[in-house]
């Protein structure tokens, strides 16, 4: 095995022993984890045939766009009724919040909490977290990198749980279809809500967490390793740097 281990790349204070893949001219395949050295741009992983990217394509812009769309859809998701219950006597339109209130007032605090957290707090949290991540990544901020990385993991993990309300409504509407006596129908709000979940999931999928750790483009970083690497490698490196973001 041979690999170029370069002392000089560890010149950044506080991260002495960590080497960036870029500095070492290696790329890890996102799918299969195989590490490739000296991969040309637009190469494909030999193991899994996935395209090798240094960073996810246009990550920030995509994430930004999806995030804004999710924010826009969040408003009708909460304002419009998600479930329309028709009984023999009346018709009830439930939004997400009114469902929480219903549980709360009928004494089921645990359920009220669950629905509130899953359907209201979690999407809000995701939107806020993604906002933080995107903004901070755009500015190449070094603030709380580790925390931000953890934040990203949390966002990815809990993303799917906001789908709870969608499933509740779909089960209820599939089950309660007793003509004349009780009838549950999904409202527009749930479509908006589903789209919020999908959009935030896509946003977090398209956000490249490596951007958290990236330094700003015009940085002293490329200079140092360039000194140690042979010229050809440096040329490749600078090209790659430009290719970033």
């Amino acid at each position, binding site marked *: 095995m041979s690999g170029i281990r370069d002392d000089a790349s560890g010149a950044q204070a506080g991260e002495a022993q960590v080497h960036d893949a870029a500095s070492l001219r290696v790329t*890890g395949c996102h799918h299969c984890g195989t590490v490739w050295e000296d991969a040309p741009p637009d190469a494909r992983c030999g193991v899994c045939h996935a395209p090798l990217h240094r960073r996810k394509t246009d990550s920030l812009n995509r994430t930004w766009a999806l995030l804004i769309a999710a924010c826009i859809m969040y408003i009708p998701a909460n304002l419009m009724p998600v479930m329309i219950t028709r009984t023999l006597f009346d018709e009830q339109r439930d939004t997400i919040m009114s469902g929480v209130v219903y549980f709360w007032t009928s004494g089921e605090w645990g359920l009220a909490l669950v629905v509130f957290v899953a359907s209201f707090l979690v999407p809000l949290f995701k939107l806020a977290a993604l906002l933080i991540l995107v903004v901070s990544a755009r500015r190449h901020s070094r603030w709380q990198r580790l925390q931000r990385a953890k934040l990203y993991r949390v966002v*990815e993990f809990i993303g*799917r749980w906001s789908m709870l309300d969608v499933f509740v409504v779909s089960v209820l509407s*599939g*089950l*309660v279809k007793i003509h004349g006596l009780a009838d549950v129908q999904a409202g527009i709000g749930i479509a908006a809500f589903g789209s919020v979940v999908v959009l935030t999931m896509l946003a977090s999928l398209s956000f490249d967490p490596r951007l*958290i750790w990236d330094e700003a483009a015009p940085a002293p970083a490329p200079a140092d390793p360039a000194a140690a690497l042979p010229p050809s490698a440096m040329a490749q490196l600078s090209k790659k740097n430009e290719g970033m973001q």
Partner: protein
Amino acid sequence: MHQRPDLIVCEECDAVYQRPLLGHCEVARCPRCQAELDRHTGGRLDRLLPLTVGAMILFVIANCFPIVSIELQGLSADTTLLGAVVALAGDGMSEVSLLVFATTLLFPAIQMLALFYLLLPTSRVTRPPGFVPLLRLMQAARPWGMIEVFMLGVLVALIKLSNMAEVIPGPALWSFGGLTVLLTVVVSFNPRYIWHLCDAATVAGHEERTS
């Protein structure tokens, strides 16, 4: 471009490390960003196939029988998962219906079927046909399978209904519960290992040489 099997790159912060040799149940973590680099799968692969088969059977049961039935004033109604999807589509909410169908039926099914096919011990030497696209598909489908969220949603719906009518859980409910458990175990394995499934001989040989 050539492979560097001795290295491992952190997915989340792009740091490069030497690929560790993991023992049983050991997990490698990136020191910089605390992300999980690698976990030992090893013998788990043997367990994976029966679990997948079990999950598939439970999945079939869960979709063939009604999840829950309610009784109100002598009227009863029940639904399967497909029934709920169809009802949503019938109400005009076809996008939501598609979403629910995808996240609870399509993607988990893709996952399970792909895994089953790939894990079939036909041979560990050469890759079965369609290996690459199937595995890619499976990995792509992974974040979108939401059976456990669905399980919780069904429970919440049941509690909501129990105020209104008499609720009788159907066989599918227990199936879904078991399916949730199994799927959680199944998806917790390291998918990367499968990529190297057929290179096991080479990897093992490689590791032997390096250690």
